[in-house]
């Protein structure tokens, strides 16, 4: 009996550890998640642009040139120039750096804090959970942008403060989702086993509960990156985010949209396209990640 079951397990083990060639896995992902793959392609393009910005850009993104103010797109300036004669293509490529940096940092820190707080809230339960959840309710009753504006108003502008401002509204959103998964996990006997063994609360939370709520956590991160990029652009557009002359898409919109919407529409169009495309890409990719990790949500 032991030998047959062992053999079966052995076979399954082989099957699991058998690495398939990369292109085969990739092909399957594309076939199963065509939209997700498109999103992944956009995300990959953005990351590529951000990493290789100095090589890809034809001009210095912060270089003013009064000879070339508001040049329409041509062969010399592929996307045209803005009111200071700065090359829009270069600024958009460098803008990807800002967007990704702010987006990833805010989404990662916000989700991770939400993860730990959400799991802790579920684990301790009782009064702590009740009070903590009411605080989260208060934070969540503000729309994302309002809360971010309030935080910027307190801390001031600048890239670090923008990250903090975007991180804070993400914490309750992630904590809420993670808590609901963690509540289910708290009742599973392996947590009882850990408690019966006298493991510390920190050990139970970090070693036994957190690894088992990774799926909602990863889903939240990917969903948040797109939102964070949008939020950063909004704050910058309102003049409360990243400051000139750092190339940021929201800032480029602000500079171009109002005065030159009719005379030089390219100044506002390209950053707008970049923001939409980035958010669209991350959302598609996030949905695909969710479908892959959480079969319960999968719509057939």
């Amino acid at each position, binding site marked *: 009996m032991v030998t047959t079951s062992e053999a079966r397990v052995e076979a399954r083990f082989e099957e699991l550890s058998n690495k398939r060639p990369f292109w085969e896995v990739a092909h399957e992902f594309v076939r199963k998640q065509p939209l997700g793959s498109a999103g992944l392609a956009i995300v990959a393009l953005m990351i590529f642009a951000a990493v290789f910005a100095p090589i890809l850009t034809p001009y210095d993104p912060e270089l003013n040139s009064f000879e070339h103010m508001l040049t329409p797109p041509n062969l010399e300036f592929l996307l045209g120039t803005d009111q200071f004669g700065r090359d829009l293509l270069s600024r958009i490529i460098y803008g990807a750096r800002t967007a990704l940096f702010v987006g990833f940092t805010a989404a990662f820190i916000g989700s991770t804090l939400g993860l730990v707080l959400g799991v802790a809230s579920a684990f301790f339960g009782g009064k702590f959970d009740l009070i903590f959840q009411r605080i989260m309710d208060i934070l969540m009753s503000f729309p994302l942008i309002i809360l971010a504006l309030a935080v910027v108003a307190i801390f001031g502008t600048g890239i670090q403060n923008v990250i903090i401002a975007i991180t804070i509204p993400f914490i309750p959103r992630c904590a809420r989702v993670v808590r609901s998964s963690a509540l289910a996990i708290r009742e599973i006997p392996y947590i009882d086993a850990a*408690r*019966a063994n*006298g*493991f510390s609360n920190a050990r139970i939370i970090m*070693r036994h509960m957190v690894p088992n709520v990774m799926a909602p956590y990863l889903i939240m991160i990917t969903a948040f990156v797109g939102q964070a990029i949008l939020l950063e652009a909004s704050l910058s557009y309102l003049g409360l985010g990243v400051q000139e002359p750092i190339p940021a898409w929201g800032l480029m919109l602000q500079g171009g949209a109002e005065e030159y919407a009719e005379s030089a529409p390219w100044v506002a169009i390209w950053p707008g396209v970049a923001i939409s495309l980035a958010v669209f890409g991350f959302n598609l990719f996030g949905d695909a990640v969710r479908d892959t990790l959480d079969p319960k949500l999968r719509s057939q």
Partner: protein
Amino acid sequence: MSTARSKPAAKRKSAARKPAGTRKTPAKRSAAPKRRQAARVAAKPKFTETLVNVRGLKMHFPVTEGAMIPKVVAHVKAVDGINFDIMKGETLGLVGESGCGKTTTGRCILQLERATSGDIIYDGQNLAQLNKKEMRPLRQRIQVIFQDPYSSLNPRMKIGDIITEPMKVHNTEPNETARRNRAHELLEVCGLNPKFSDRYPHEMSGGQRQRVGIARALSVKPEFIICDEAVSALDVSIQAQVINLLEDLRDEFNLTYLFIAHDLSVVRHLCHRVAVMYLGKMVELADCDELFDNPQHPYTQALLNAVPIPDPSIEAKRKHQIIKGEIPSPINPPPGCVFHPRCPIAVDECKKNVPEFREIRPGHWVACSEI
């Protein structure tokens, strides 16, 4: 009274003999039981030292209403004042139907639930009064094996880590290498290949996982193990293997078990003494053979009578003594003897007076005023 009881007594005798036949089913190891039983009888006098002493244990769970300001409207009396003790080296079986409080009793001893009242004295220390820090050294000595082998192992941890983690926390082995070696040793003791330590739980079968659960319980060299329905979730052939493993481990490491189960044939095979629970109360407690051969409480008799006989021709002719009615709600248990609404021998007295849990002959305790 004696004439009234003579009939059930005769029935009792025939009923009690029959379950003995179930032990010779092919699923069990054929040669072993006789030898084991002989060893058990011979070993009986050595259980003299009390290890666990449970006195007046009550566990009432509050039933609340209202989301924001919860208000207690009632209590589920899961365990309602039970007394028993477990001797060093013995195996005490705890049986009863679903919801009778046997698992809750185990959880109270483990301090996974804080008992409402009562004392749990373990080797001189009252667990019910210890705080978390004081409890920790005792947790090493009391271990648990859970019912469901699928949910009792963390799916994100490798088998090796699952087994070494308690050793790390309780610091029973000096270093990582020693812990690894001990994990390999334990896997072998539990009938698994040491190379399983690099696998994840989902790569194993139910029986193999339960062996991992046993290895985890043994890792910190405990003296007392609570087996909470440890074999109920396994299929019959694996059940027999795991029971034999538990038996061998008991003899090898001189373990004491509290064996919570509902399968009576398993209990008879493994236990020295058996306690029967009904609706949070203990109704009968006796030596294993005494309880199975000579059950006194009407509930125990019905419970034993419900065990099917693995011979269709006898089973078809047999007259079942089925207890009438449903198990009452533990929120509002019947007054007097909790069993009286379903009891075949109940008299008016039973509705008013709570029967005393008394010793009717040495070592045989019954909570029934009509016996």
